[in-house]
């Protein structure tokens, strides 16, 4: 890197430009499309000359898409609300369930602990359809299909293993000696967990919170909605 020649500079610059072009162009193009009407989108050849319109965003927010053919109802705001609620709720549940379990796996080597932790993680990698197809039937029998409760439960299979394994790593990186000292000073287990372990692991928390919260929104929900096109409530 010390002997950067002009040729290498040019090469690096071109390569980086091409990379940025390839990865950013689709997003840029769709972004442009969002300010256009159908007429300008469908032009042949495509062109970037158009008068921007906010109709599309307006339609999403008001829920009424007005076109020459008539008015169409779109429930985007409700869908968005559903997505946000489901993500937040499932990550909250996964944190409540997962952080204590992660602490247990990190601090105590108990019988079968590695096997249990591995089994939980392997859920993350199992093909979703294998479980989802029978689950759809069970949910219909149990009356759980199309309910928030059912979806949040299913999301746990994705969120919980991730939270468990990431947070476990944080707890393992913290020395247990501080906790022992606090315990010997006569404090209860729960106080130690709350006052020592959690604050020490806390700085790493944005990752386990953000990562799975983006996941229900992307991976599983798209799969789940393909199965249940009506799952709006």
């Amino acid at each position, binding site marked *: 890197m010390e002997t950067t020649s002009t040729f290498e500079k040019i090469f690096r610059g071109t390569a980086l430009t091409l990379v940025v072009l390839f990865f950013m162009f689709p997003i840029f193009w769709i972004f442009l499309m969002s300010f256009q009407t159908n007429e300008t989108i469908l032009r042949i050849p495509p062109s970037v000359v158009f008068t921007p319109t906010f109709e599309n965003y307006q339609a999403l927010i008001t829920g009424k898409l007005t076109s020459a053919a008539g008015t169409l109802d779109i429930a985007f705001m409700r869908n968005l609300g559903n997505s946000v609620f489901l993500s937040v709720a499932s990550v909250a549940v996964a944190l409540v*369930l997962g952080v204590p379990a992660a602490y*247990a796996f990190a601090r105590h080597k108990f019988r079968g602990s590695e096997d249990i932790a591995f089994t939980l993680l392997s859920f993350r990698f199992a*093909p979703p359809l294998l479980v989802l*197809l029978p689950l759809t039937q069970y949910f219909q029998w149990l009356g759980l299909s199309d309910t928030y409760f059912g979806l949040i439960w299913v999301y746990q299979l994705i969120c919980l293993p991730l939270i468990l394994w990431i947070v476990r790593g944080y707890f393992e990186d913290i020395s247990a000696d501080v906790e022992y000292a606090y315990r010997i000073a*006569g404090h209860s287990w729960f106080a130690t967990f709350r006052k020592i372990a959690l604050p020490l692991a806390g700085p790493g928390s944005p990752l386990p919170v953000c990562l799975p919260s983006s996941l229900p929104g992307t991976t599983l929900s798209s799969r789940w909605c393909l199965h249940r096109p009506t799952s709006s409530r």
Partner: protein
Amino acid sequence: MASTANQRKAASGFRISRKALPYVLSLPALLVCIGILVPFLTAVVYSFQRYRLSQPWARQFNWGDNYINFMSDPGFWNTLKISLIYAGTTVTLELLLGLGIALLLQRRSTLNNFVSIMLLMPLMTAPALAALMWKLMTNPGFGILSYFAGLIGLQDFRWASSPDTALLTVVLVDIWVYTPFIMILLLAGLRSLPTQPFEAAALDGVPRTFVFFRITLPMLTPYILTATLFRLLDSIQQFDIIYAMTQGGPGDTLTVFQVEAYLNFFQSTNVGRSAALMVILWAITYFLSNVFIKHWLRLRERARGES
């Protein structure tokens, strides 16, 4: 410390809870996840049955017939072949591209950091949505990419709707979505490498290619392995991109495992065959994830100097 009695009480409480505590703590998480074993076992049972939703009266155990039939079923071999080709191509190309980009961005600078964050945007889009974006752009009528293809002389390039280029198109979308994942892992790896070996090599005037193949690459191997296995596990079960793009078509050119199982369940309503397909895919991913997790645990231990 208040008194010796108090101290003993605390100590004994410590010992008792030490035994029961981990079970108590991990029980809720386990109970929530154990619910999933029921549908899993149901799926395995289905895979041993002759079970079609259209003929519920003919439902009966046929034991391994679903699996034995796969042997002489060209559709199954096609599914296996396509899945392996898809996973192999995407992971190889993403790895090469991701490594290349990570090397380009290795030096810490404002521009490089900005670009690396910007490149994460495709990863933030849902794969199904990314597929729809590309579907818009590759529309033969008004798609911008079809227009570009026409400019460089590829008139009437059919993208995902031609059997010849369908695989290429979905691989392209997969690369667009997931290369940033590999890039960011390898970038983190590259930046965390110790600097001494590189300084020593620079002092000795070792050629750059030699440094790359003999120092950088071996030291980066753990990160490369992690990224590869992670992507391989996801890629072999790809569903979103392919289903949103082509629904497994045209014909059966893109019927990878999950798409084929989905079509079997919902279109030909052959639940038995669908379940058997998923069980085979599960066996493949279980093997891969086992390798992955063992490897990961070993790395963690080495990182903490325990082995």
